[in-house]
């Protein structure tokens, strides 16, 4: 009998060795995250911030799409819902970031619940289309809100301060975002390792069977929709602070697709995959830009932006066709080889 390769989050939590290994990995990850900005330049800190922020958005999306099987293009809209709720709370009531994020999460949960409602009746391409429609409708609502509240430029955010402490510096911003990302990672890990995680997978794979096991398919789906969009909306507030502004023209369908590309490239249904995918996709423009600077001049490299568009497309295609389990697949097979070898 061959050894099964269960996704790590579903691996046996009762197995002590796996637990130790996982704790070890977690400690290592935290160490890397903390040490990173201390050893790299401010620019790479910014790149790392982008990646970590992208993870904080991709991971909840992966929970929804990868684990619960709800293919959604609504994540950019959830970001704008969060950003504008956050802006409204911040500017109108002069609230601190944590409060703004909580309120944004609540708004995100509500909107996610509503956008998730069609998932009770629709599946596959139809559900995807409903999220596409939701994207445009929500962004339109945000536009109207923006026009009435902030003007055409959108909301301009002041440098981040919490309890009188200035957190807008590169490093402090990085730590704030990393801490939030860690929280998101923890929540998702907890859920997916619990029995509810199993239920979520069951709803994805066989909803009739899930119902036959006493799992409320509707409740499970709506929970995941609300939870995932709450997390994305909260991330939206941070993102807006980080970018310095929130303007509807930023929240495009392409932005939504970028996060979908991340979870695809990283690995569907895997938290580690979300992280790898976020890093990878964030790095593509950075690397193409560096390459074109290093070897620029003639040929296609003279048009790095076009080249980048092509490369981005090729990466997506290549992963779907050649590595459907994503980057995390490499990690898993490497780990398996290690385990079998030693």
């Amino acid at each position, binding site marked *: 009998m061959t050894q099964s390769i269960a996704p790590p989050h579903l691996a046996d939590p009762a197995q002590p060795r796996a637990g130790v290994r996982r704790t070890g990995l977690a400690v290592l990850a935290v160490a890397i995250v903390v040490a990173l900005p201390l050893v790299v330049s401010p620019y790479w800190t910014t790149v790392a911030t982008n990646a970590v922020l992208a993870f904080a958005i991709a991971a909840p999306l992966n929970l929804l799409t990868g684990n619960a099987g709800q293919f959604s293009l609504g994540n950019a809209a959830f970001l704008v819902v969060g950003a504008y709720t956050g802006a409204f709370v911040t500017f109108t009531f002069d609230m601190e970031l944590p409060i703004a994020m909580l309120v944004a999460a609540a708004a995100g949960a509500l909107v996610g619940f509503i956008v998730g409602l069609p998932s009770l009746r629709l599946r596959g391409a139809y559900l995807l289309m409903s999220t596409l429609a939701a994207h445009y409708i929500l962004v339109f609502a945000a536009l109207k809100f923006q026009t009435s509240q902030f003007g055409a430029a*959108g909301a301009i955010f002041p440098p981040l301060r919490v309890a009188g402490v200035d957190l807008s510096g590169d490093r402090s911003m990085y730590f704030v975002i990393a801490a939030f990302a860690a929280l998101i990672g923890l929540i998702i890990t907890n859920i997916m390792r619990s029995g509810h995680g199993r239920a979520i997978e069951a709803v994805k794979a066989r909803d009739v069977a899930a119902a036959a096991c006493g799992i409320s398919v509707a409740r499970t789906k709506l929970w995941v929709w609300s939870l995932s969009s709450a997390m994305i909306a909260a991330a939206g507030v941070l993102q807006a602070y980080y970018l310095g502004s929130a303007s509807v023209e930023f929240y495009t369908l392409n932005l939504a697709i970028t996060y979908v590309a991340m979870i695809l490239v990283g690995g569907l249904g895997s938290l580690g995959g979300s992280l790898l995918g976020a890093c990878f996709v964030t790095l593509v423009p950075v690397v193409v830009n560096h390459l074109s600077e290093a070897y620029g001049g003639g040929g296609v490299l003279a048009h790095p932006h076009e080249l*980048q568009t092509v490369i981005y497309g090729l990466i997506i295609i290549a992963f779907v066709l050649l590595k459907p389990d994503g980057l995390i697949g490499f990690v898993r097979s490497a780990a398996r080889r290690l385990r079998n070898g030693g």
Partner: protein
Amino acid sequence: SAGTQEAATKDDAGTGAATNVGVTDSAVTIAYIGDLSGPDAAVELTYYEGIKLAIDRANASGGINGRTIDLKAGDTRFDTAQAVTLFKKYTSEQPSLALLGINVSSMFEALTTRISAEKVPVIGPTGVTKVTLANPYIYNAQADLPTSAEAITKFISRQLGANAKVGVARISTASGDEWFDLFQKEAPKIQAEVTGQQKIEPAAVEAAAQVAQFKRDKVDAVTLHAGSGGAIALLKSMQTGGLNVPVFSTFGASGPTLWKSAGTLAASTYAFDAFAPPDSDVPGRADLEAAMRTAGSWDKFQQDKNYAEGWVIGNVVVESLKRAGKDLTRASFIEALRSPEGFQTGGYSADVNWSKKNGLADASAVKAFTFDPGTQRIVEVTNP
């Protein structure tokens, strides 16, 4: 945002404090940040090509004060997050003496705080006038929007007399908002009636509904503030919608595509711009044409004022570097930018002079252009 403008932060106080950012003995780094593959790419790529031509020429002639100019370019793809990352890149990883580009107004607004904190000069963005004038690190050579509004209203009253009904078509970004406010303020001075505004997305393809509304409002003229995409959308839709009234555009859409897309309306389409196209009969033409022909860009861009605009900005940078001397720092560079004698532009625009104000000063600098069907050229309107 004005209050936060000077906010510098503790753990990454702008490298601007350092003396020689982006400068070594042999090179100086300047970076262009722009939308090179998004909806505004047609304009911003051309602009970049013009800048590059000026810089390449300076490098070919041995550089400036012994230094070659290392011109970097980063593509925002019309994405604020990319703009923020690139800003970081070109102020810390590959620290640049100055930045060029940043033409999308919402990005520009998002970055203004960082620009102040970083104390990095940004030359030539065409964003929002309010922000430009409020931020001492931003230097703009293009017609600012209040000046454009003034010029356009005057022109309209000369062409159409009083009581003209004017429709406003504007890009749905921050600068569009500003434009509408300004034009509304300006219009009563010529007794014109503003009949409301129609927004146009940066990536709009057509504007049938906007044109239908203008027709219903029975406008006598349309003012346009948009990028080239929005201009095409409006003008093409005016033709298919049968709206035959003059169009008055700001600098935003005054490239050749404005008149190309105007088709039958070309002769009654006007653009107000501080910059003239490369093939204008100005003193600097021989110089620019020779450089463009060598670079092989003459045929493609000879009618595109965005190219000339880039060329001028590039030359302003080169000239400032010269003036800043051997001892090049951001401070000395900024001082050179503000030098009272200003910069000559070969007649492609009024002389640039930032000694008093970091935007364009006087209304005479804004010229009106239209299309001459006879010569098939974009020409200045000398006698309106």
